[in-house]
């Protein structure tokens, strides 16, 4: 299915290749480089490139292209999902997935790729199982390994592969039994000039960290399960039970995993947690422009809006800016014309603002369009959709586990047009 994999960096060098069937010459990537050259931005390279004998399906993550070479017709979603899984695994193993990290750990990378695919078919992709086969490198382990001569490779057959429940290994033991759940919501929104919402939707996930002894059977119920539109579950969740009773019932994998991801669309009214007052004007004929931006919280149920970061790509004609932030720091890069303002926390009593003037290229005509403002923020202790976990129960084991639930809201692609 997947013939070969090439890792290409942004400057167009192949820095790793792996072949699962016969060796495909590097020259096949020329078609990819051609498309890369033609694309103005790195992310504009089309994901599927047909060549006379192959298809190249690529995924761009962390400024690295993962290019899969395919020889026959395949379901594209399958390959794309698999490539993302590869990247996720690398990230999981090395903390970051950069060219340097991959080069440093080239041996582990080869081992992983070898285990993940055999003859082009996915073999072991569950991080639980992979980690038993190949232990992730840590500083401590590397040191221990160099001293004792032990290895990153598990000597035993991973037990998970033989257990009745494929995602959980048997014989798990912990002294502290704990189950933590993080409800993380990202709000994607486009707000128009006048402040009304064009689109808004929430992508939510519940990530779990479960360290429980034995084979626990958990149920999790929500206060308002109807809120969730499109839900997708970890394979461990019993879907029938959810459909009938709207209760999540599952035997959890051991360790970290994503229990479910969901999506709340604009059908259910989405609350927008921040508002922006802006006044960005360019006058015809003058070489000055006004820039005036104020942020404020809105519908946050009293929770503080933190880690606010505003960025905006100013028009090409702007030479420099002379702005005055009421709090935080701002930078303007005159080359890329990128304005970033690190606001920090919004104090509802004293709203942060950024005011001042922009100097424009003399004689140039007024820019056609006003810049779009991107905002990042975080709100702790609140899920903006209003989703709340009701209770968590455990069956099948005798001990009392420690349970915890955390909520957080983040800005995803949050844009304000001016």
């Amino acid at each position, binding site marked *: 299915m997947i013939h070969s994999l090439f890792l290409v960096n942004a400057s167009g060098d192949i820095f790793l290749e792996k072949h699962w069937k*016969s*060796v495909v010459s590097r020259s096949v990537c020329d078609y990819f480089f051609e498309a890369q050259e033609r*694309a*103005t*931005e790195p992310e*504009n390279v*089309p*994901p*599927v490139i*047909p060549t006379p004998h192959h*298809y190249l*399906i*690529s*995924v761009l993550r962390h400024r690295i292209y993962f290019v899969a070479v395919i020889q026959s*017709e*395949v*379901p*594209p*979603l*399958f390959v*794309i*999902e698999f490539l*993302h899984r590869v990247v996720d695994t690398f990230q999981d193993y090395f903390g970051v997935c950069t060219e340097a990290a991959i080069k440093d750990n080239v*041996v582990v990378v*080869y*081992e992983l790729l070898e285990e993940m695919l*055999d003859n082009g*078919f*996915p*073999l072991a*992709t*569950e991080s639980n199982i992979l980690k038993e086969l190949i232990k992730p490198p840590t500083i401590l382990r590397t040191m221990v390994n160099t001293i004792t*001569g032990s*290895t*990153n*490779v598990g*000597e*035993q*057959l991973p037990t998970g*592969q033989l257990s009745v429940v*494929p995602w959980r290994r048997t014989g798990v033991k912990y002294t502290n039994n704990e189950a933590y759940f993080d409800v993380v919501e990202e709000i994607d929104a*486009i707000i128009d000039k006048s402040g009304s919402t*064009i689109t808004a*939707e929430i*992508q939510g996930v519940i990530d779990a960290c479960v360290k429980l002894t034995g084979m626990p059977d958990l149920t999790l119920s929500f206060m308002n399960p109807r809120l969730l539109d*499109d839900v*997708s579950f970890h*394979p461990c969740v019993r*879907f*029938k039970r959810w*459909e009938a009773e709207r209760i999540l019932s599952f035997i959890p994998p051991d360790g970290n995993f994503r229990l479910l991801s969901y*999506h709340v*669309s*604009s*059908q259910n009214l989405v609350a927008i947690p921040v508002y922006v007052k802006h006044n960005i004007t360019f006058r015809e004929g003058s070489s000055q422009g006004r820039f005036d931006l104020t942020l404020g919280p809105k519908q946050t149920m009293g929770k503080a809006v933190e880690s606010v970061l505003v960025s905006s790509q100013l028009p090409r004609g702007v030479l420099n800016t002379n702005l005055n932030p009421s709090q935080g720091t701002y930078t303007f890069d005159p080359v890329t014309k990128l304005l970033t303002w690190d606001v920090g926390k919004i104090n509802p009593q004293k709203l942060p603002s950024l005011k001042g003037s922009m100097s424009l290229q003399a004689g140039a005509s007024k820019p*056609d*369009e006003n810049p779009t403002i*991107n905002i990042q923020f975080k709100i702790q202790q609140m899920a903006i959709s209003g989703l709340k976990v009701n209770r968590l129960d455990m069956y099948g084991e005798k001990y009392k586990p420690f349970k915890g639930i955390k909520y957080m809201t983040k800005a995803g*692609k949050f*844009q304000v047009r001016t």
Partner: protein
Amino acid sequence: MPYLGSEDMVRELRRALSNPNVQSDHLRYRNTILKVVRAMSQGVDVSGLFSEMVKACATVDVVQKKLVYVFLCSYASLNPELSLLVINTLRKDCQDPNPMVRSLALRNMTNLRLPSLVEYVEQPLTAGLRDRAACVRRVAVLGWAKLHKLQASSDIDAAVVNELYSLLRDPDPVVMVNCLRALEEILKEEGGVAINKPIAHHLLNRLKECDVWGQCEVLKILERYRPQSEDELFDILSLLDPSLLSPHPPVMAATLSLFLSLCSGLPAASLSALERVRGPLLAACGSASREMRFTALCHIQLLLRSLPGLMGAHYKRFFCGYAEPAYIKQRKMQLLVELVNDENVALVLDELKGYCTDVNTDTAQAAISAIGRIGRSYSDRCLEILTGLLGLKQEHITSAVVQTVRDLVWVCPQCSEAVCLALEGCEETVQDSQGRQALLWLLGVYGERVSSAPYVLEVFIDGLRSEVSPGVKMELLTATMRLFLCRPAETQDMLGRLLHYCIEEETDMCVRDQALFYYRLLHCGIEETRKVLQGRRSDPSLGVLIGRPAEPVNQWARSFNTLEPLKQSAAETESTSGGSPEPVTSVPRPNTDLSLSSLSPSPVDKPPNGVALCFLLLGALEKAEEEDYVCMEEHVHCPAPPRCSPQSLQAALQLVNVQTLAFTPPQTLPWRVYLYTHTRNTHRSTLILGELLYTGEERVKKQPRDDTALKGFLSILATVLHTLSSERA
């Protein structure tokens, strides 16, 4: 990238590898091997170390083994003789008590891919199939597929195939899926795995146990199975139903694909399946991965062909984000065009207007042509936006607007007033050849209403020598001729100069031929010229059907979840980013391969008047693309014109794969319908363009080029008309 000093490096490594001190200290030994592998991954040619590495293979250290295997598998094909030495170690490892070591040895044995080693590999592979540990069986099963590929010519051992079939019942789900994969490859020539009822049900029941990848594979292979009874079919469908809402888009897509193939005889069931996947598909459109979003968008486009209303309420999901890549934006715009209705048109147009000034020129042009498409049903609003864009005086925007407007006025002649007003001054901004061609066409056709038209053309004629594009020259000829007919006094002189230059000095044959043709045409008299050049304009009473009727699901079900829907976009982006945007076809139909450019309102005056003359015109203009055009008139006998609604006629024609382009309203005389169809044989395809004209008698004009196709078309058409009129009678 072998860099300087690679030879020194190899020498150094060889010395280290053969040093007995290093060999005795297994930590140092392993580190040296690690260096070799690292050098290999950097592209240094370390194949010279093969024999040293073979020796390093005999060790109890699993990591060292793995490293050596990585090396051996890459260079084995260069050293088939030396590779023989490894086999012994590998075979010994296959007896190891640790299943990890056994599976590792087995996998690498098959990964060496040396035909000369096949005889040594077969025995351990057979043993591997019966191993206690599932992980060894997994590897062994796939090993047979690899082995088969090495000696594809030789016959398949029936015993092995039987064994693989029986392993489909293996308790380990991965072994089961691997068996399917291996059998698919081994039995490729016989059409893959044979799926009978027990196997199909066995696979369905165990679907849940497989991982995501396995599920996809099983679902795909099950598409081959045909249930024997209706009850069985519904059992399978209800078993599959939960997978339609699977969290993993690949599984969801594979399930839907299986659903569609199972329900090919039950349109209602497949439509309800499409409704079911709306949620998951929309969720995939919002996924964090761009590539996933893109693929989901492409598949939604397919779905909309059968259920145009499917995403109606969700049109806002297809608004573009600021930082999205161009290929996603373009797809989203195509989708927005499909989703426009009376309620959301204002919002959608506002949104598209914002994209027209995008930094990326391809995106901007795509947005403009999207507005043009919407303009066919909401012409006033769109024209306002388009003419507003001309004010920006941006080269690429103006060019795209002019092309869009050209396509628009052909379909909606009532907009021509506004267009004529807007054209003034465009010639300074439009630079590329496609844009200028469109501008010239507009000036030629509406020359009498654009006061500055002769002066614009004069500038073009004066600059003729430096003009490179033959397309522009030909368009210029036609435009000047047309203008000459309505404003002879101002144009006569420049037409003379133009014709002189083109006939005497031009080197491009097409341009010269066309000039000669016009020259001779003028000799025939002004009336004759007028008849040819001003052939027929589009008819203001023609109403274009915008929402095309739903296609049956079966038309596209086969291409669902394949690369097909994505491929097209790749071709499109290529053509647009290549610098010269293709003329927008008037009826973009995602799956018609035939170039429809001959249908676009561009230079060709569609339904021609004089047969011989027209042939010449078309031949000259369309050059290499379609050489043999034939025009003819045929009578279709039909008792009475069908007095049914346009929609039902369209639906009826669509059943026989005839597409309708435009209609006059019913009850008008002459009543006409423009239609087209294409047939595809093994080696060539025919496009038939037809005009159905009723003036009291029925007849069809069309431009076919092979007789059998024409006859077939006529008989089908007659049947449809008969059926329709008898229904009404």
